[in-house]
């Protein structure tokens, strides 16, 4: 990477930024899931690594969260931007050099920020844990250059229209910048109390709703038609998805604070809008599954489609939960329990991660023009990720229901701890499986780059996956 930082733009091979982002994202996924596994072990085995505040759960939990969101997920998104945006515009990335600088700034900045946070230097606000000077650096040294590269690539496209994926890509970066800027207002101006609580969750909700969910979905709009050869089932439904995300997903932030003294009209409005999130969800899932018509054998044969369609199908329970768990009656029961933690992992480790993994698999093979080193290792990765995630999700969902019942019936806290202990062990087992799968993934992709069979000119990697 370093040799390209000061090279001329035209001397940098096309796709370099995407490759660097791709490998960065896998490495951050390993770091993030290692931290997650470590934290889960502390919950399962309370005597595991004690005596140092640096390794206390309270110090490490948010490092895990931010490493996964801004390391793995967002860098996988950046990789997708770097190769899908130009591919859909039938052009080159506007500036490979800017992309490589963005990748460098991102990795360096995130490393520093996470170390500071690990040391306890934090805003103390969930999902905006970084101190505000670092938030501003992220905004202007990472997101703005990333946005400029994507927007200028779209502007300089050689196609007449803009495909749905690029609608999402271009708008999501803009919306993320607004969300980061506004969501950190309590830090800039020392806002406290209800205002701080609301803006914290306004930010957190919109990070999920206007960044992670739409970009992950947009990736699927590219990978499924590209690999299956089927055109997208309906561009109109894709447009419905886009507009309903902007209108319905940007408004229910208050549903995260249903028991707070926020204005009643705001909570009611948020609850209704929260149910309406099912509109983009149904549009997305139905569009992608119908695009698969006649090509369902790819779900078995092709690793990228298997990842993608698994992610698409995980969107069904995700949005069913999301639509209804924030209504007052259900929220009263599940708020503040492991159910919500399980739901968050369904969104980030389930739905979103599977879609991004497909983008990284497909992107690295396509850009490097190398056939996947080992399909067996890719299958190992898929199943460890899926079984590990499912173990985690189901166990914590059950633990959350136990906690909810205990909350309402005022069961002594220690009894709850004892009752949920088996599920905490299952959580650790599931998380560790995910981590193990990711280590194998990195090895597989590294070997793909170093020793993968070259893909002949005019062919695509998935077309020769089973050719020796």
């Amino acid at each position: 990477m370093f040799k390209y930082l000061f090279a001329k733009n035209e001397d940098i091979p096309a796709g370099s930024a995407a490759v660097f982002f791709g490998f960065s994202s896998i490495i951050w996924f390993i770091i993030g899931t290692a931290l997650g596994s470590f934290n889960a072990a502390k919950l399962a085995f309370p005597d595991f690594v004690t005596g140092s505040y640096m390794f206390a759960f309270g110090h490490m939990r948010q490092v895990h969260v931010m490493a996964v969101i801004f390391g793995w997920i967002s860098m996988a998104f950046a990789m997708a931007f770097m190769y899908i945006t130009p591919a859909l515009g039938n052009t080159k990335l506007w500036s490979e050099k800017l992309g490589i600088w963005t990748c460098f700034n991102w990795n360096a900045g995130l490393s520093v920020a996470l170390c500071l946070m690990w040391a306890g230097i934090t805003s103390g606000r969930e999902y905006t844990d970084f101190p505000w000077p670092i938030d501003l650096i992220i905004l202007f040294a990472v997101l703005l250059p990333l946005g400029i590269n994507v927007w200028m690539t779209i502007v300089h496209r050689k196609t007449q229209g803009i495909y749905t994926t690029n609608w999402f890509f271009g708008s999501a970066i803009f919306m993320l910048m607004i969300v980061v800027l506004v969501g950190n207002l309590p830090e800039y101006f020392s806002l406290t109390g209800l205002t701080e609580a609301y803006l914290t969750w306004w930010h957190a909700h919109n990070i999920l709703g206007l960044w992670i969910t739409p970009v992950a979905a947009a990736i699927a709009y590219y990978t499924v038609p590209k690999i299956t050869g089927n055109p997208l089932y309906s561009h109109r439904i894709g447009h419905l998805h886009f507009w309903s995300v902007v209108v319905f997903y940007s408004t229910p932030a208050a549903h995260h604070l249903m028991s707070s003294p926020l204005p009643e009209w705001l909570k009611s409005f948020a609850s209704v809008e929260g149910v309406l999130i099912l509109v983009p969800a149904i549009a997305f899932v139905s569009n992608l599954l119908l695009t698969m018509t006649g090509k369902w054998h790819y779900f078995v044969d092709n690793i990228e489609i298997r990842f993608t369609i698994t992610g698409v199908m995980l969107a069904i329970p995700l949005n069913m939960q999301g639509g209804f768990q924030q209504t007052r009656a259900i929220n009263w029961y599940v708020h503040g329990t492991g159910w919500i933690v399980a739901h968050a992992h369904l969104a980030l480790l389930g739905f979103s991660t599977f879609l991004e993994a497909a983008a990284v698999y497909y992107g690295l093979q396509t850009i490097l023009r190398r056939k996947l080193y080992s399909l067996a290792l890719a299958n190992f990765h898929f199943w460890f990720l899926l079984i590990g995630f499912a173990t985690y999700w189901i166990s914590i969902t059950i633990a959350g229901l136990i906690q909810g019942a205990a909350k309402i019936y005022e069961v002594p806290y220690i009894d709850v701890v004892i009752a949920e202990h088996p599920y905490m062990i299952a959580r650790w087992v599931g998380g560790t499986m995910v981590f193990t799968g990711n280590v194998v993934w990195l090895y597989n992709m590294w070997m793909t780059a170093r020793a993968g069979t070259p893909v002949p000119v005019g062919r695509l990697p998935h077309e020769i996956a089973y050719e020796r």
Partner: protein
Amino acid sequence: MAFREYKIGTRMFGIALGGSMMITLYMPSLTIYSVGVTETGLVKGLSYGHNSGFSYEDPFLQGKGKPLTVTIKKDPVTGADIDPVDAYVYVPGTPFPSAVRNPGILGTEVAALSADDGQVGVATSDEGAVFLVSRGDYEGETFPYIENASATRDWTAAAVLASAADTDKRHVGSGKTMFVREGCEVSYAAS
């Protein structure tokens, strides 16, 4: 066909996102601003102080620039026994919380009581101050308000700290902001 520029779509996107911001940010701010703060809100605001995380005053989150919550059992001036009351002690240089800097956010009634009966307007960060949460009447109804005890009772920060035992002093946020946010206050003596 001509190269599409998406002018209408771009404008619609601006309207949709702008409308969302207006509904979820601007309109709630009007409602929240017009509602009076509760006693719990005042206690939290005064005990947490101005800084709730990273700040210039306390970049390493060591509890600098944070107020102390002191349970007072004797009058700091006369030494006479009084009913225990929590005082929020801001030693000189400690930044005041938003509730003192901008009483307008407390709601009409609480702001008026805090300004008139509580005399919060005369408190300065350079000199420090001791605040109490008191109750008073405004147009026939009782409301909580912030009382600047340094002005109304001559309770200085130094006198209050000298009159109370260490076990009655609690320092919210000393190095453990996240835990404190869950309600687990760290004792001043321990920190």
